[in-house]
């Protein structure tokens, strides 16, 4: 019979009043009753309510129910504050302490952005460095070749192996005291004489000889060597058994730090190799890729670092894979840096907005 609809704002109360007064079906004017309870109806409307409620049981019920509801609400106890909410100087000085509600992810986003950016720069630098040193890398690459050649008695590689062997030997024998990388030209010539395929060695050397690229390469590899001295040393052992002694000589003698430098280029050299001989990978590529694997197996004594260099060797022997790896890491780092940065900026602006 009656619909206790919520108050419809703007509905003309005059019409309702009329309906109520006529005692017809009506919507109970909740708002009027509520305001009447609080004494907030103007006199004329209040008297209309009084008159209507006297006649309309429905509205009377609502009014009484609302009155007792209000009584229950008023009976709700007022509670003492459990403690003083006074602010201490520290509360106030602690700058906008909103972050309490922000997730740790957001708070670390600037750090993440920085790290990602740093990774990007480092990887990009490494990428460019290896790319630039393409020509000069040949020394290192030849050393790598030397090893592969040593392990595989491949006809194609024997030449390269002999090529590489001299350089390696030269570095260790002739120029122990200094960074081996810079010597290549000399070593190439001097040792080329000693080994069979001298012609190959000499022809290659010029390319390699370019001092600058080598110099750039040297430091990078130098970092690995010191620790890895065991790795290079282990490598030669198998090499010596399979291939020209020159290779073995080159690495074996290495005792003091400088030697480490000389022998180290081998593992690191793989990278340059990639740069220098992208095309070269075509015919010998198949056999060469196998080489690293076997080499890794050969050194059971390798230290952890040695393992790493071995791995590096391996991966770097694969031209395309290496480049792609750089590319992927660069892209990932760049994306991570941008994403973290954007997240942080968005968070900051939002925080400013709310503050």
């Amino acid at each position, binding site marked *: 019979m009656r619909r*206790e609809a*919520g*108050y419809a*704002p703007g509905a003309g109360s005059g019409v309702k009043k009329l309906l109520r007064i006529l005692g017809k079906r009506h919507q109970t004017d*909740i*708002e009027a*009753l*509520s*305001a009447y309870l*609080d004494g*907030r109806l103007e006199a004329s409307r209040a008297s209309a309510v009084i008159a209507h409620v006297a006649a309309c049981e429905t509205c009377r019920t*609502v009014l009484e*129910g*609302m009155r*007792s*509801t*209000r*009584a*229950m*609400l*008023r*009976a*709700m*106890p*007022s*509670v*003492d*504050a*459990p*403690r*003083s*909410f*006074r*602010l201490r*100087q520290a*509360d*106030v000085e602690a700058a*906008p*302490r909103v972050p309490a*509600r922000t997730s740790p992810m957001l708070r670390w986003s600037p750090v993440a952005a920085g790290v990602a950016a740093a990774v990007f720069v480092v990887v990009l630098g490494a990428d460019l460095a290896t790319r630039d040193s393409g020509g000069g890398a040949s020394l290192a690459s030849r050393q790598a070749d030397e090893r592969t050649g040593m392990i595989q008695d491949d006809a194609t590689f024997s030449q390269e192996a002999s090529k590489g062997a001299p350089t390696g030997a030269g570095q260790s024998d002739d120029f122990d005291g200094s960074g081996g990388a810079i010597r290549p030209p000399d070593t190439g010539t001097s040792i080329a004489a000693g080994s069979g395929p001298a012609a190959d060695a000499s022809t290659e050397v010029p390319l390699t000889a370019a001092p600058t690229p080598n110099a750039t390469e040297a430091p990078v590899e130098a970092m690995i060597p010191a620790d890895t001295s065991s790795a290079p040393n282990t490598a030669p052992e198998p090499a010596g058994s399979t291939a020209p002694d020159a290779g073995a000589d080159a690495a074996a003698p290495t005792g003091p730090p400088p030697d480490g430098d000389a022998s180290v280029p081998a593992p690191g050299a793989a990278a340059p190799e990639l740069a220098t001989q992208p095309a070269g990978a075509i015919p010998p590529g198949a056999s060469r890729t196998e080489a690293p694997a076997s080499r890794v197996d050969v050194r059971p004594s390798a230290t952890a670092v040695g393992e790493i260099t071995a791995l590096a060797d391996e991966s770097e022997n694969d031209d395309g894979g290496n480049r792609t790896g750089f590319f992927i890491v660069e892209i990932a780092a760049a994306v991570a840096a941008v994403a973290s940065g954007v997240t942080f900026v968005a968070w900051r602006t939002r925080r400013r907005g709310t*503050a």
Partner: protein
Amino acid sequence: MDVSPPEAIRGEPEAEAALVRRALDGDLDGFNGLVALHQRAVYNLCLRMLGSAPAAEDAAQDAFLSAFRSLRTFRGMAFRPWLMRIAANACTDELRRRGRRPALSLDAPLAGSDEHIDVPDPAVGPEVEALRAEQAALVQSALLRLPEEQRLAVVMCDIQGFAYEEIALTMRCSVGTVKSRIARGREKLRRELGPMKEQSLNLERQRIET
């Protein structure tokens, strides 16, 4: 019957005005004077809006902190409705947080709030006391089922005894809107609490008698 709860009773307006002036000058002690004046009202608003004593405590602290930080935005209006608005916003934040973490159910906190409420009244017997506590819990849970705007209007009007005008300032709406929100809130509560009517009337009678 129409006695307003203590927190809605205005202190000396001049004293408050002086404290507001000091606070605006960056005087923390001045601001803390205002905290002392209003913390009961702020805390009770939060308690009824949230139905949980710990949450209310957090919200009240947040409210005072953000009030101090946004003092610059306070110019030329009454201080208390401005502060109550900040408290209401703190409650909204808390409710939003709670919405994201359903772990906090609406019922669980009730027990917590009751602990605080049940201060034994020596004037009434233990039965009446128990009845009153039960009723308070039912009213509180019904309040929590109201839409937030209606809840705020009803809490401020019927529980805390604020005038329509001050509620309108707090909610930044017209007095007509306040009336409407209070009416709709009361009506919903009436239907929810209908079965309790008799009980509450008895309770009221007993209160009057004692």
